[in-house]
Structure formats: C-alpha cells, structure tokens
C-alpha cells in the first residue's frame, strides 16, 4: 500500500535517510522505531509529500505520491504546525475545508474524550494539549493511511491510553497506521509490525507476534539489542 524504493534524503553532508526500501501493507498498525535522528521523521515527511527525496521514490497504491495521495494520507508532524492565529475549532474547519474525509462528528467526540475545548487558541496550548489536538484533528480524518510522528511525545499516561484507543478504533483491513516513536514500550501492544531504522538505514522489519513466539523477545528487547545502551534510553 505504501512503498518506498531506495528512498534517500541528504541534508548537506548528512544522510538522513539512506536507501530505505519498505513495503507497508494495509491492515496493519506499524511501529517505526529508532532513536532520535534515525530518519523516521524524514522518511514520513517524504511519504507525506512534504519533503522531496534526494533519490528514490515513494508509491501509494502503486502510484508516485503527490497531490492525489495527500487526499488519502493523514500525516501528523511531531512539531506543532497549526497556524498560530487559529483556535482549535478553526483548525477543524480548515481540515473540513480541505479534506473530504474529515468528520466533524468524530473530531468532537475525540475532543470530548481528550477534555479539550474547541475555543482554545492554538497559540496558548500546552504541549500536552497541542499533542492531543493534533491527534484529534488527524484521527478525525477517515484516511486510508495515517502517519503519526511521535504521537506519545509530551503526553501523560491517561491520554496515551486515549490515543491508543483512537488508533485502535481507526484500524481496519484496508487501512494502514504508521507511527514513529522512540517510546518503544508504548507501541508494544498496539502495533503488529515494527520497522527498525538506524542512522537512516533500514535494519529490520518484523512481525511483532511472530517475533515473540519465535524468539521470546518483545520489541523493547529487540530495540535494546539493536541500538545497545547508547540508543536505547533516549526517552
């Protein structure tokens, strides 16, 4: 469903993403794992069409990503990106104006569960509230693919569970959910596939339950094994 072929991005002398070839299938919740700077964000930005690759390509349903794919891909950046003059309600209206798959009903439901007020100015939101608002507006789209970059950053335990619920509710056989995180434990139970990146390179792609059954390793164990002491505990 979402496929990258030898995808590469070079910033000056630094290679952020290095020939990553991935084929992510619908019907899965996929965790993209790696410490900060491993290329997760850059890969996602290229898959969202916000950032042009240095070389390589990304395909959505067999077609190069572009204007058309953006109508079906809901991307949530890790940084706050709302216009500062907007209230949360304005953001939702903006999404409704531009995305045919946006549901105001679902959005209001998520806001209520996150205990967020629609009339808050995005400028005044705390980091936790901002993270929730970003999730609410992104998950209120009935997209084919959701890409969430670090959805659990800056969010307390209760809200993390609420976000996980929202993610589980959206999962379906014809949809793909891709989440990046360096908080591996948070991904453990809700993801069924995991992609490990290190220094821009694809290290490994695993089926989480198969991995547990065959090696007795959780993805957190796997993570520690791959990244060792230096990469493991950056949370």
């Amino acid at each position, binding site marked *: 469903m979402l496929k990258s072929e030898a995808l590469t991005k070079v910033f000056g002398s630094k290679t952020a993403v290095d020939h990553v070839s991935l084929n992510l299938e619908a019907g899965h919740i996929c965790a993209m794992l790696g410490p900060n700077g491993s290329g997760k964000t850059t890969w996602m930005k290229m898959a969202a069409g916000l950032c042009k690759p240095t070389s390589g390509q990304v395909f959505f349903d067999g077609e190069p990503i572009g204007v058309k794919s953006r109508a079906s891909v809901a991307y949530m950046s890790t940084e706050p990106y709302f216009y500062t003059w907007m209230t949360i309600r304005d953001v939702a209206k903006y999404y409704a104006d531009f995305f045919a798959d946006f549901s105001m009903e679902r959005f209001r439901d998520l806001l209520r569960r996150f205990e967020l007020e629609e009339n808050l100015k995005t400028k005044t939101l705390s980091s936790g509230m901002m993270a929730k608002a970003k999730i609410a507006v992104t998950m209120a789209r009935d997209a084919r693919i959701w890409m969430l970059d670090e959805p659990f950053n800056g969010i307390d335990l209760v809200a993390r569970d609420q976000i996980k619920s929202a993610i589980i509710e959206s999962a379906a056989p014809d949809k793909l959910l891709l989440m990046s995180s360096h908080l591996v434990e948070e991904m453990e139970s809700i993801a069924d596939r995991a992609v490990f990146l290190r220094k821009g390179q694809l290290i490994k792609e695993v089926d989480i339950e198969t991995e*547990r059954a065959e090696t007795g390793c959780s993805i957190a164990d796997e993570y520690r094994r791959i990244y060792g002491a230096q990469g493991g505990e950056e949370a």
Partner: protein
Amino acid sequence: MDFNASSPIWMQVATRIKTEMVSGKLPPGAKLPGGRELALQYTINPNTAARVYQELEKEGLVEVRRGMGTYVTEAAERIARLRDGMARDAAEDYMDRMASLGYTRAEAVAWIEQEDREHAEE
C-alpha cells in the same frame, strides 16, 4: 493489562479469557466482546484480538456465529476439561518452582498442606 515479553500477546489475552471462563465470570453461552472491543479493552492490535478468537475457536472454546458475534461454548464439559487442564498447569508450575528451590516433590506437597492449614486458622 501488562504483557510479559516472552510469549505472544494473543496467548496472554486468551489465557485471561480462559481464566474468566473457568471461574464462571464468563458462563457458557455468554457473548464475548467483538474483535475491536476486545482490542480496545486490552489496548491491543485488532489483528491480535482477532487471533485470540481464532485460537479460542480452534480449541472449541468459543463459537463464532456469523453476523452475531462470538460466544462462549455451550458445551460445559469442554469448560470443565479446560479447568482441569489449567489446574494441572498451575500444579506443574508450582512443582517446577519448588524443584528449582531444591525441594523434593514430597516436601513441596508438605509445604502446600502447611500453607493450607495456616490459611484456615486465619
């Protein structure tokens, strides 16, 4: 629910459901939550939740009725057999642990009896 790392999550959830079946919390014929509700209840992947029911169905413990949902089997003898099996597993676990502490099987039984007497006195 916290999952341990060493066994698949579907297995851990299935065990939990089985425990509820043998304890009577989920009586024969009881309706189980749908796949997505199960996923939400345990905060697990929906595919994992589906796997839980597939495996329970394979073991003959649940029945999937098309368009209706998933139900605990009406066959009480299957639940009874499950209960026996789980009791045996628990007893074996206990024996294994005592063996790892250096006790003989007879000593392990004595410990259990003493524990039971003390519990009755309280």
